[in-house]
């Protein structure tokens, strides 16, 4: 089922869980709007993760599930940021789910 968000005079198509259908629709202003809908106030730490999952998607053509997100963050930023507690604090409803949603990417495959 297709749904849409009205944003800045544009109609953005999303799936029923709120993930963008076309990641080319994404820009940072839209990310702020999506964050608001999730009740998240974007800090530098949030942006870092959102940009990270976008880069992950561009490189590997897949949205990272939580375990992979933690591991990949650890490889780039070290264990302080590459751990699930840190990410869970930023994205309380599930880091992989929420960060990929704000980044305009598909939901991680078979993410529970």
């Amino acid at each position, binding site marked *: 089922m297709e749904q849409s968000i009205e944003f800045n005079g544009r109609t953005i198509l999303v799936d029923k869980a709120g993930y963008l259908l076309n990641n080319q629709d994404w820009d940072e202003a839209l990310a702020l709007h999506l964050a608001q809908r999730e009740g998240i106030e974007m800090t530098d730490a949030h942006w870092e993760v959102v940009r990270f999952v976008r880069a992950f998607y561009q490189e590997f053509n897949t949205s990272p599930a939580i*375990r992979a997100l933690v591991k990949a963050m650890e490889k780039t930023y070290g264990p302080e940021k590459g751990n699930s507690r840190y990410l869970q604090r930023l994205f309380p409803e599930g880091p992989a789910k929420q960060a990929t949603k704000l980044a305009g990417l598909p939901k991680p495959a078979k993410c529970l």
Partner: protein
Amino acid sequence: MTSKRIAIINRTAPHGHSQGQEALDMTLVAGSFGQDVGLFFLDDGVFQLLTGQKPDAVLRKNYSKTFAALEFYDIDTLVVCQQSLQARGLTQADLCIPVQVLAPDALREALASFNHIVSF
């Protein structure tokens, strides 16, 4: 309780069919749940790993880029059949990620160490 080891075998080429994508999805999910997974490429399955694929030309997703992310899913057993490579005029240098290339005997032995074997 120790977890069971799962081997996932690719035997078909990419893009003509969807088995390759399905095998990869299963691998990522099993990896996400901390299962001990080995990924094997035999026969036409070795074409899955070829570099330089541009399946956008036939409106398919380029999931070959995802193989490079397997390390983040703790999947480090990647085995390719040497005979299958050779029959197709390929070497490790034609593949998009580093793998273990095994002769048929060694490959059979490697497979025997898994509890479950799923073939795509």
